């Protein structure tokens, strides 16, 4: 699944560690989500959407799959 996490994080000048702390996961989890190899659970996707003040669809894109 594609996502805009890296772009959104960079726009706020947050490190991966910082974003991880904000949503309660490790830096490794953020890296794995940013690479697109690991899809977050729905609760984590909601947390990410909340910290960026966006909807889940504005962050994650499943390419219509």
């Amino acid at each position, binding site marked *: 699944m594609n996502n805009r996490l890296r772009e959104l994080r960079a726009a706020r000048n947050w490190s991966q560690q910082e974003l991880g702390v904000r949503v309660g996961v490790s830096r490794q989890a953020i890296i794995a989500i940013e690479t697109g*190899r690991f899809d977050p659970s729905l609760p984590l996707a909601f947390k990410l959407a909340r910290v960026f003040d966006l909807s889940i669809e504005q962050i994650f894109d499943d390419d219509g799959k």
Partner: protein
Amino acid sequence: MEPNSRFRANVRTFYAWIGSMALLGIGPIAGEMLVRNGSLVERVAGVAVAMLSWVPWILIVIGMIRRGDEFSLRVHLVALAVAFLGIMAVLATIDWLTRAAFIEQPPLAFIWPVGFVLWFAGILVANRHYQRPA
């Protein structure tokens, strides 16, 4: 959990893990001594001591895995699957090598180090896989 309390919990877990590892080292030695003494009660006690020395370590590892986030749980799932399949493959290979009289039957204790190595290799491989750009 706040970062500070998480850090303190991690330090406590680390010391508990070290303690459980020490117990894991002492338990089999004490068990072996009791088993070798020969009486039924001592042999039963030896088996019990050696097996029970695993319990704290197992509980601590379960706790460590359960406290991880969803990514860490995924990595452990992959690593444990790798370790399980690897052990099955090693056991099948040794079984057939033994049946064909190429090697002597090795002691079952060899499974533990093989399992640990495969588990850690699985953790490294899974971590690498998920953090590599897609």
